[in-house]
């Protein structure tokens, strides 16, 4: 009777390794190609943005959409972020007998870190997802092709105003976040915890320097670029119908949020 020969042991080990290496290679190629595409997209948008005609109306419309319409969520987030920071900070600082430093602690945390990061994340959630979905729908409904047929560059008409609006709006939203956040902290510190209002504000005045504010603003500009760049890229190249648009929107929000946090670390380590 003939028995089927079992495959050699090295064959059994080699097959999964080969498929693992193949998969790794495939993901690496996809990652490099996607990264290259994202940067080429940004260069193309920059080249289109400096070329006439300049459509100020489009830019103002996007500033309104990304900025003004995000104001409510920014104010709400800022108030509660400042309040919780004051509450937590007070109980921590009390242990060291340093509750007088609550004002500077709240202000520095918000100005250097929480202001730009939370503003970036809130704008990603509110406006970034909408940008990706809007462009994605325009892509699958052939409206972007229609623009091209009319001889209108879609990157110039649709994408450049959105990215420029992000660059302008996020620093402004961050400043608003900072002010409201500090006032939120004031509410808790002075009204609830009965700290002296003079101690709260004089500590801020003597501790916060221009460098802190500039660091926060540099972060805000960077996050404004990241949110609008990634979200417009994902929407612009959306494909495969409604499912493709939903995938593009999800990956735009996830990638923007992750990049904001990664970029925040690197900017902080460089500017600290």
């Amino acid at each position, binding site marked *: 009777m003939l028995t089927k020969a079992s495959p050699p042991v090295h064959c059994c080990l080699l097959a999964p390794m080969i498929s693992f290496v193949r998969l790794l290679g495939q993901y690496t190629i996809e990652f490099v190609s996607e990264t290259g595409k994202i940067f080429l997209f940004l260069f193309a948008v920059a080249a289109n943005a400096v070329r006439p005609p300049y459509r100020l109306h489009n830019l103002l419309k996007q500033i309104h959409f990304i900025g003004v319409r995000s104001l409510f969520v920014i104010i709400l987030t800022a108030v509660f972020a400042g309040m919780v920071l004051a509450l937590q900070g007070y109980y921590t600082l009390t242990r060291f007998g340093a509750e007088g430093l609550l004002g500077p602690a709240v202000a520095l945390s918000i100005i250097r870190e929480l202001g730009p990061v939370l503003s970036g994340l809130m704008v990603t959630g509110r406006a970034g997802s909408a940008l990706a979905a809007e462009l994605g729908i325009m892509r699958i*409904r052939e*409206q972007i*092709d*229609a623009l091209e047929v*009319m*001889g*209108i*560059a879609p990157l110039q008409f649709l994408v450049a105003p959105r990215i420029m609006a992000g660059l302008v709006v996020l620093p402004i939203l961050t400043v608003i976040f900072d002010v409201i956040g500090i006032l939120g902290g004031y509410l808790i510190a002075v009204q609830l915890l009965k700290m002296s209002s003079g101690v709260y504000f004089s500590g801020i005045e003597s501790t916060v320097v221009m460098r802190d504010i500039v660091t926060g603003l540099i972060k805000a500009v960077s996050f404004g670029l990241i949110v609008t760049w990634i979200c417009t890229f994902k929407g612009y190249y959306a494909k495969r119908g409604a499912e493709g648009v939903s995938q593009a929107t999800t990956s735009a929000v996830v990638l923007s949020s992750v990049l904001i946090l990664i970029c925040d670390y690197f900017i902080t380590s460089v500017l600290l």
Partner: protein
Amino acid sequence: MSPVIDPDLQQANQDAEPLPIGERLVRNACISRAQMEEALAFRARQQDDHKGALIGKTLIDMGYITHPALLDCLFHQLTRERVAYHLDRQAETIIRFTGVEKTLDGRKVLDHLDLEIPANKITAIIGISGGGKSVTLKHMVGLMKPDRGEVWVGDQPLGQLSTRELNRVRRRFSMLFQEGALFDSMNVLDNVAFPLRETTSLAESEIRRRVETCLQEVNLGGMGHKYPDELSGGMRKRAALARALVTQPEIILLDEPTAGLDPIIENAIHYLICDTFMRTRYTIVCISHAVPAIFDWCHHVIVLHRGRVLASGPSLEIRYSADPTIKQFISGDLDGPIQVI
């Protein structure tokens, strides 16, 4: 020795001579010359805003002809022209594909495609779904670039043009997309005015005048304030057609203008295309699945199959082709060289 002239061809050419619509209606005895002159005089007496009104509309308003009769007259004229084209086949080529190849997602969609589109004629591109029709149309206007081969518009090779030159060539085109591609955030009036506002320096009053005229031409007069989601499928297509006409292009590309519409609206769109052609004499290229109806509405037909041209010629010739694949496509039989099940 003088050339021998085919009397049928001579008569067909005389019948098919392109004339202004009013003159054509008189020649075809749809209205009297006195009625046409009266309509012209009436139009001339109107205020500035109404001077641009179409002669056909003026004749309808004056009760000299009904709208269906006017369209019918234009259809008969198109039929005469189709016969003349079938007999003499004289037409300049405006778009030419030479050895165009395109692969999408690993599938060869266009396989060494050679085709020619005659100028100032209505050309229909037909074929089974997935045969490369929409991809062909997108190549004509440079929305897609061939992997190999070249697309020529007039004497300009699209693949060798700079972005600026390509945009200049694109301004010779208008395209009606399958779903209309109207901008959702704008009403119909703004949608139609959009290409004029963005690409010309015309005054707003002139833009509005042109838009109103175009909307009247597609029977959407007074509907300018509506948004695309408030329109039916047929109205959306007509609004998109108005946007395609407003820039007064040389070439109009229509990607399945009657897809998803009921037979009456489909017929109305065909009449509209015929009416547009008679008034403007633009080159019209139309992808259509409305077989066999489309043969009555175009001069030239190109059958695409598996990324290649299976047949190309006057509609009358293709309609009665002996090719089994074309016969099967026209009849819709499941049995034949095209196996779908």
